[in-house]
């Protein structure tokens, strides 16, 4: 309707709207942004009266989204660089075990325990990265192995130490330490994890599109052979990204510890797939060279909304996973279609 109205007036520069439309469609964020709006509208219209729009429920789905998005932002950079990391969920659990054991049972302060967890996570990230670049084996396999190793170690070590799989009472053990405010505060009605989520997303976006290091990431995932020949330290880029991903899991761990006051060796099971899903909905290609942390933010937001909004629908809860799967499939189809449409006229093969 609006197109037929504007085209006569547009006259000779009629190509402009289609160009800008294509530019818009080509943005990796496109599907995630539109999808988020559609999903939000869907739940607002059909479940708004049941309480989906209340402040408490908004806080809840933003918190779920933040715990995905904080890891998904560095994961997006890693995907752009052409590598996977499936060990993130188990690293969240390991960090929770380390922090909760050291604070509750060993009496450490929160900064010390957090520091220990960051060191441990960074070590795992370094091993991940080093093994991937040295062996040149698919990172899918290497980090899948790491998933099992770390998850098993988290469960095994905690059982050796305490005979349980969870540790309660981190809040009471740490008390009102100033450092705790970084992870337990609220911002208005929302939890502070949302602030971390947005800050880390912006940082990732700035690194990817505003820094030389970002160009290195694109080059590493886009065409590694060419990147090596132009002197880009491809291996260092990858290892650094693995470390960044690992450290982000520690942040999620401490936020989760505070959100629920319990550390669990089984925490974040399956999180590795959720973060990749968020990145892919956000436009990242699993083959590398393409992706957007901003898109991933919307991907995580969409995931969080679906994850919580479904339970407002009158559908029986048992259908949740089927519903989630269909939503994701739809998002990826639309993503793929719009990208193909957008890229076609330029004849890129």
């Amino acid at each position, binding site marked *: 309707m609006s197109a037929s109205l504007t085209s006569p007036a547009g006259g000779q520069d009629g190509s402009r709207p289609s160009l800008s439309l294509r530019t818009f469609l080509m943005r990796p964020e496109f599907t995630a942004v539109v999808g988020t709006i559609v999903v939000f509208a869907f739940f607002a219209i059909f479940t708004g009266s*049941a*309480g989906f729009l*209340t402040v*408490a*429920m908004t806080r*809840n*789905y933003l*918190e*779920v989204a933040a*715990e995905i998005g904080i890891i998904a932002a560095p994961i997006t950079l890693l995907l752009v660089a052409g590598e996977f990391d499936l060990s993130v969920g188990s690293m969240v659990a390991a960090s929770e075990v380390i922090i909760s054991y050291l604070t509750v049972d060993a009496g450490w302060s929160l900064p010390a325990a957090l520091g220990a967890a960051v060191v441990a996570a960074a070590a795992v990230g370094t091993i991940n990265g080093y093994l991937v670049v040295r062996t040149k084996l698919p990172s899918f396999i290497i980090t899948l192995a790491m998933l099992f190793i770390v998850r098993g170690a988290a469960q095994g070590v905690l059982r050796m130490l*305490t*005979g*349980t799989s*969870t*540790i*309660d*009472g981190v809040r009471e053990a740490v008390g009102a330490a100033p450092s705790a405010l970084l992870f337990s505060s609220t911002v208005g009605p929302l939890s502070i994890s949302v602030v971390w989520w947005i800050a880390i997303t912006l940082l990732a976006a700035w690194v990817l599109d505003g820094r030389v290091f970002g160009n290195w990431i694109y080059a590493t995932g886009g065409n590694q052979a060419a990147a090596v020949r132009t002197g880009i330290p491809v291996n260092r880029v990858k290892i650094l990204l693995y470390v960044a991903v690992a450290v982000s899991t520690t942040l999620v761990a401490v936020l*989760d510890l505070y*959100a*629920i*006051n*319990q550390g*669990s060796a*089984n*925490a*974040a*099971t*399956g999180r590795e797939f959720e973060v990749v899903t968020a990145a892919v909905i956000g436009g990242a290609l699993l083959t590398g060279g393409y992706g957007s942390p901003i898109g991933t933010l919307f991907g995580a937001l969409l995931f969080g909304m679906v*994850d*919580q909004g479904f*339970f*407002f629908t009158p559908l*029986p*809860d*048992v259908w*949740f*996973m089927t519903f989630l799967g269909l939503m994701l499939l739809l998002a990826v189809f639309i993503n793929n279609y719009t990208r193909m449409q957008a890229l076609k006229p330029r004849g890129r093969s």
Partner: protein
Amino acid sequence: MNALGAKHALVITTPIGAIPFVDARTNGFRKAFKGTSTLAEIPVSDLNSSNRIKTITETQLQKDQSIDAVFSIGSCCIAAMDQARTDLGDRGKSMHWGTIDLTAGGMQAIKNHDLDFALDAQQYAQGYYPVVMLALYVRQAVRPAAASYPTGPAVITPDNVARVQAATGSR
């Protein structure tokens, strides 16, 4: 829950059919509870994420304001339930909260009167001991002398939680 005067209970459980022993607990509760039961069915993939158990629980409580009691089907969901009670503020305080199984956090919650009761599944009394009894009966035709077998409190309430804590330590 009946004794506490609850009319409408939310049962935090897994989708019916997902984990059989949980189904048995859920159905047992629904059969014995005289009021209405609504289920918060936590997807098995979220069962280890206390934060999501909490948010799904709060969603169900938001949807139906007539719910006046929450019952967790196992130790999985005690931390989440406790946080939901805190988040709900005054409504949370006016409701009844109970669980099967006991955790360190659960004991603390009973002590603080945040949790009304916990049903302690006694692995020794319910699992190991009957096997010993049956084995003795089959092999030596020995039967327990007493008709009843006294064990620790199976229903943990603020009145007897100190005894349990003294006996088990903090976990």
